[in-house]
């Protein structure tokens, strides 16, 4: 087969690079979570509340993480195991990496994994993958603290606006994503509508029965019912 570049793509050196980058992410997450926990207790949050938040995130992230895993298996076949694992743990997104790799191949007049792709094509894909997403890290690294200043200046002493802005941003961002599914008038629309309905119902039940823990499960349940409804539709 012409796919000998994959032997190099699975080179030990790439594993070393991948492990270092993944460790940076783990280090940052653990450090931030520890600080959040201790500061949370100091500013009056209860351990019980923070545990509920943690549990909800673990439950919620299982489904989409598994979806990312399915995407990773496809990506492994294109750019090798260490870099697929690295890109989907650091910076990357499952829909994005394959496209970036393809852009690198396209300008060489080939396609990822094709007979004439080879090592040069692979190298170009790696450059395009790295260049194509480096800006997110640079912008977030340099300007995130400025965004908080900006928000606080806009809100001023109207602290009540903080949650109004956040809820508006959630509805705006996810309203856009939901609309993209709705305009298909097809299975994705079914998944979105069922997901939304299940969520609304579970939240109402949680509110009226006083069973707050239902909220931790709500999104996990909503996404499973939503995605299977789409199949059975």
């Amino acid at each position, binding site marked *: 087969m012409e796919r000998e570049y994959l032997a190099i793509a699975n080179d030990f050196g790439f594993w070393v690079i991948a492990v270092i980058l993944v460790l940076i992410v783990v280090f940052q997450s653990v450090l931030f979570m520890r600080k959040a926990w201790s500061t949370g207790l100091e500013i009056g949050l209860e351990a019980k509340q923070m545990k509920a938040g943690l549990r909800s995130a673990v439950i919620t992230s299982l489904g989409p993480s598994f979806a990312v895993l399915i995407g990773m298996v496809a990506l492994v076949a294109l750019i090798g195991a260490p870099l697929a694992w690295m890109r989907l743990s650091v910076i990357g997104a499952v829909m994005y990496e394959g496209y970036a790799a393809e852009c690198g191949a396209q300008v060489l007049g080939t396609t990822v994994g094709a007979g004439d792709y080879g090592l040069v094509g692979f190298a170009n894909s790696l450059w395009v993958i790295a260049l194509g997403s480096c800006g997110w890290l640079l912008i977030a690294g340099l300007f995130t603290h400025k965004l908080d200043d900006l928000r606080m200046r806009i809100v001023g002493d109207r602290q009540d606006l903080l949650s109004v*802005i956040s809820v508006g941003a959630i509805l705006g961002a996810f309203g856009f994503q939901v609309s993209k599914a709705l305009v298909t008038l097809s299975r994705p629309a079914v998944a979105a509508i069922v997901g939304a309905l299940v969520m609304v119902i579970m939240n109402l039940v949680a509110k009226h029965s006083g069973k707050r823990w239902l909220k931790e499960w709500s999104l996990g349940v909503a996404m499973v019912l939503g995605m299977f409804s789409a199949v059975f539709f």
Partner: protein
Amino acid sequence: MPSKESVFNEKFQKPIVFWGMATCLLAFAMSFLPPLYLWIKYHVLPGAGYIVAGFALIFAYSGPLWFVEPLAYFPILGVPGTYMSFLSGNISNVRLPCSALAQEAAGVEEGSREGAILSTLGIGASILVNILILTVGVGLGAELVGNLPAIVHEAFKYILPAIFGGVFGGFVTRDFKLGAVALLLAILALKADLFPIWITIPLCVFGTVVIGAKLHNRKVGPPER
């Protein structure tokens, strides 16, 4: 006793900004190691023209998003959540839902200082789960995924709209009117098809935020001058 704001700023925000900046910039530099390694060890370097041409292709898609996404998602993620999300990626499908839901499940106000704490915990947990699953999966993944029943494979094609619908449903109960506004705005923008995605996303987010603030002000009275 120090105020909540000063505790938050001194013990949390300041070290977070330092380490957030350090980790993101370090990862920025290190993300170039794979192509550099290929160059140094195997002496493979495509011509600069090819690299630039490939970059131009991807930049047309991702370049504007570099600027727009941190801005649009910041009100949900908060300071630590922004550093974490843009370092770890998979933002709209994992980080944003986990951030929003952790704040909701703990019953704190979104966007408040307490909200930032919960967003940090939620995103951190989602990152660790994600890495754990991928790390186990990088060894067993192909086999595991290959053995899934066909129907499960099929269902996973629709997980994204199901998540997005779920998050939307979770917050639309706060303000049905604003939810309708958000959908209308997005459907109009998508149907008119006038703008590229990097305009549509901030248009939907900030359009909804501004209208939400106006509706809120009408309820509580105009801001005092």
